[in-house]
Structure formats: structure tokens, C-alpha cells
């Protein structure tokens, strides 16, 4: 017997994984860059 698939479940799951990972990666990279540059600027002032 053939299983009935709802194709949108698979599409939404794939987009959630892809978009979620990309957004998390961009946010993490941007924030760590800002933090590191702030730390460097503070070390210059000290």
C-alpha cells in the first residue's frame, strides 16, 4: 500500500532547517565580530 505524504510538511521542515541554520550562523558571526572588535578597541584605550 502506498503511503500518503503531505508534501508541504517536507518542504516546511527543509526550509525551517535551512533558514534557521543560516540565520543563526549570520547572527552568531556578526555578534562575535562586533564583540571581538569592541574588545580590541578597549584594549587599545587601556
Amino acid at each position, binding site marked *: 500500500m502506498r503511503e500518503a*505524504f503531505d*508534501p*508541504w510538511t*517536507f*518542504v516546511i*521542515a*527543509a*526550509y525551517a*532547517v*535551512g*533558514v534557521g*541554520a*543560516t540565520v543563526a*550562523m*549570520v547572527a552568531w*558571526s*556578526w555578534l*562575535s*565580530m562586533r*564583540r*571581538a*572588535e569592541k*574588545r*580590541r578597541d*578597549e*584594549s*587599545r584605550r*587601556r
Partner: protein
Amino acid sequence: MHGFANPARFLRIAKWLTPLCLLVGIVLTAAALGWGLFAAPAERLQGETVRIIYLHVPTAWLGMAGWMGIAAASFAQIVWRHPLAAIAARACAMPGAIFTAVCLVTGSIWGRPAWGTWWVWDGRLTSMLVLLFLYLGWMALEQASRESGREQSAVPAIFGLLGAVNIPIIHYSVIWWQTQHQPPSITMGQSAIAGPFLVPLFAAMAGFSMIFAGVVLARMRAILADQQAEARLRRKAFAVDAF
């Protein structure tokens, strides 16, 4: 390329290029994925699940491009001893590994309705999984070299060059072996994919590539800033000791 190996010049350019790449990449990717989800047609045989292509193909391309970035930077590190080469390789590893993992997961999700299985040990899937393990191994090796005080160690660079052998294996796996994965759909000058699917696909590839470039630049800036702060603190500690 040699001109950009100067950290001060690189930072001057990266300062405006990083937000530009990220902004253009996010806008282009959001538009392409929205187009793929809501405006592009469903495929005759695969139906709605074909929409996964707009995520799966760009992440596959960037998983491989990330390792090519590591290999190119490793070459520059070994041959020209560019001061930024090891930093560039380190910056490419994390986004490359993430895109490879996303490619594997989205491919697995796509495989279930298309092939009736989440996973098969065929040439393309297995060589892509090997690429993920290569990324993890490279990151562990690079971190171990750094922690033992060898920031510019040639060992991760050699691993980066040797690992590049896997890239043509991934590409030709669907030609060399009888696989579940379909043969290449886009080759030089021709495409087996129809126009209505191809346009959002190229837009997604361009958008994700810009995001990748922005993330690599941001990570290079973060690594450089960390090194500069650490060097300054070390100099101050030496100066205090001297008194």
C-alpha cells in the same frame, strides 16, 4: 590578490564589504526562497517537494565551495606565506560545515517523499557525508595546532589541500557510479532544469553565496581583532615585567 594579504588593507575593505555582502545576500535569498515557495510552479512528477531544490542545491554548492576556499587559502599559506591565508581558511570552515550539514539534512528530507527513504549509501550522499567529516576533522586539527601555540601551522594547510581530492569525487560520483541521486542537472552551457525553476534557483545560489562571503569576512575580522587584542595585552604584560 597579494595586495589584500595586508591585514590593515584587508580591514579597510572588509569594513564596508561585510555588511554589504550580508545585506544583499539576505535580501536576495529571502526574495529567491519566497519566489521558490510561493511563485515557482510545482514539478510534474515531484509535485510541491521540488521547492526544496532552492535550499538544497545552493547549500551543496557552498559546502563544496567552502572546502575549495580552505584549499586555496592553504595553498597561499604554504607557497606565499600570506599572513591572512590561515585566517581565511579558518573563517571558511564553519560556514562550509554548516552548509554541508544543511545540504545533507535537506537532501534527506527531500529523499523521503522522492525516493521513499531518508538515506542511501550511494556515491553522492556518502562523499558529501565524508566532506562533513573532513570539515569536523579540519576544525579539530586547526584548533589543536592553535592551542599548542602554532597559529600558522602547515599541518591543517596540508590537510586542507589533501581533502580537496574529495571535491571532484563528489562532483563525478553521479557519473562514475550507478546512484540513487540523479546525474548533474546543470552543466557548462546546458541545463536539464526548465526556466521557471532555474531563475529562482540561480537567485538563491547568488544570495546564499553573498551570505557565505559576508560570514567569512565577519569571521576573518573577528579572528584578526582577537589576535590584535591578545598581542596588545601580551606586549603590555611584557612591558610590566620589564619594569
